């Protein structure tokens, strides 16, 4: 049983397990996701996902349905309603159906897993996502990636390919970050075999084991990377590159894992980074402020660019916004510097 020891020790930014799972399941084009619970759990997430999709230029509605539980099902059990819905939505043959449990169905003890195990003619995947059981957004995301990974079989390795694992589908720069990763990999002649999971069909996931290298979005996805390494023998890099030197290290790591010659790519990227820095030569000596007197931001990738460009962190300089999460690669740093330039121009 999980408990929160004290209200002041609880994580306020962790969100709900359901949304973590939805950030993955709704990125599969031919999948339908059922939230087994009252309609509010679906409506709230539907609105959030729809807004995020639109911000990313995706006009499609999230394929999200609710079992619309009422007090009647809470008292008598909701399995029947779930079965009826699964019968209806499995008939047209979607790529797969995900069933996410909510707090209330796990409280009343619905055997959601048993209902999903029945023969529906299409894969029906149960994801236990009752928020009160703990874990939050990240746990929902990791559990979903793990569940999908467990289902797939080894396939022939494709040389010079990578799979991107756990892109943050709800962050607004996800496609921009993807473009940067693709650019960096092109410097080495490497292509992205699969985005696990973004903008693909359910059957595409079967290709996951074919990537020669897995690149995780961030270190918290290490359990997924480790599992894929154990299952398919695929090595992994535990995060996408942040900052100038981090980007160069990333190129070296990819080259190392894929046994490639790295110096030409490093030379190209170093020259590119020099060009980017040259665009911001006017930053030298500008007093900036990260919220603490005479202190850097504490984020290595940010502090590196501050030092490289000669910005002067003080307690009274221009207050610069810090990005969360840190944008990816050299292009990410360049975007950040453009944003800072606007702030500096307005403030001075």
């Amino acid at each position, binding site marked *: 049983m999980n408990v929160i020891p004290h209200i002041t020790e609880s994580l306020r930014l962790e969100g709900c397990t359901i949304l973590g799972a939805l950030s993955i399941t709704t990125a599969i084009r031919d999948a339908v996701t059922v939230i087994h619970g009252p309609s509010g759990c679906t409506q709230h997430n539907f609105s959030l996902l729809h807004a995020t999709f639109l911000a990313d230029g995706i006009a499609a509605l999230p394929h999200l349905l609710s079992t619309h539980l009422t007090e009647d099902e809470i*008292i*008598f*059990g909701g399995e029947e309603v779930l079965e009826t819905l699964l019968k209806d939505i499995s008939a047209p043959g979607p790529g797969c159906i995900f069933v996410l449990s909510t707090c209330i169905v796990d*409280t009343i003890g619905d055997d959601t897993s048993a209902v999903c195990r029945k023969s529906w003619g299409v894969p029906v995947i149960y994801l236990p996502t009752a928020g009160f059981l703990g874990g939050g957004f990240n746990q929902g995301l990791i559990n979903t990636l793990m569940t999908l990974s467990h289902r797939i079989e080894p396939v022939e390795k494709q040389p010079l390919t990578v799979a991107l694992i756990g892109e943050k589908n709800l962050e607004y720069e996800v496609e921009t970050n993807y473009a940067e990763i693709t650019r960096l990999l092109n410097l080495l002649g490497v292509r992205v075999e699969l985005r696990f999971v973004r903008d693909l069909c359910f059957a595409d996931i079967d290709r996951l084991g074919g990537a020669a290298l897995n690149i995780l979005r961030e270190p918290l996805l290490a359990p997924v990377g480790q599992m894929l390494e154990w299952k398919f023998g695929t090595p992994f890099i535990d995060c996408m590159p942040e900052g100038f030197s981090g980007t160069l290290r990333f190129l070296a790591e990819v080259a190392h894992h894929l046994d490639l010659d790295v110096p030409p790519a490093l030379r190209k990227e170093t020259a590119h980074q020099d060009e980017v820095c040259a665009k911001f030569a006017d930053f030298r000596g500008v007093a900036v402020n990260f919220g603490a007197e005479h202190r850097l931001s504490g984020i290595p990738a940010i502090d590196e660019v501050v030092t490289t460009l000669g910005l002067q962190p003080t307690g009274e300089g221009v207050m610069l916004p810090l990005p969360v999460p840190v944008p990816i690669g050299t292009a990410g740093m360049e975007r950040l510097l453009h944003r800072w330039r606007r702030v500096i121009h307005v403030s001075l």
Partner: protein
Amino acid sequence: MRQIALYGKGGIGKSTTAANLSAAFAEQGHRVLQIGCDPKHDSTRMLMHGGGIPTALDLVRERGTSPIAPEEVVFIGYRGVRCVEAGGPEPGVGCAGRGIIATFQLLEKLGALEGDVVVYDVLGDVVCGGFAMPMREGYAEEVYLVTSGELMSLYAANNICKAIARLAQHGRSRCRLGGVICNSANTHREKELVERFAQAIGSFMIGFVPRDRIVQLAELHRQTVVEYAPSSDQANVYRTLAAAILKNKQFTIPSPLETDRLEALAFEYA
């Protein structure tokens, strides 16, 4: 209006006691409502001469949002006792506790919670908040524990004391323990033990119901003892108990026993 709730271990004889008390109250000229708060929905069977009545929850389920009339939920049994069965899910699914809450809401909406005496017959133990519903504000103000001298029965009764004590901490709660009813299982020194237990938790034994074959015979004839054998000693026991409950003014916030103390008590009388 007196609202009394009978709680106790499953199978201890709560429904038999409740039905016979309701019959005795009715005999004494009171308008009685008995509400079975158990998904098994067999509390009022003897009052209805064995005829099962539709449960409130089944009706709500069947009707959806369509209106329900009070007479579709409240059925008239022996001597005009009005009978309601909450009902609930099949074993192993859903949430029976929420079912009790929904039933109470329905009865309130229908204005059915009225009469001189309302008897709530509640599932064996207070397994969740839903089964504590009859003890909450606005419902039963008197709880009677039905127990025998068996340790597990006393254990369940002691647990219910914990629920009463906890609810009593809420400023506006008026729920109190009215007493302990010993429904005999013919165990050794049973009456002494239950009296001692009642005293230890800060209450008293309000009645002793001896074990009598007439209870089984009455049930086989689908009647309460009060109806089946009105001149029997056992019928008089129920009448006496009903009168004692109506006269009772000794309501307490119980002090539940620690398990070790409860076991030591049972051991002392074994």
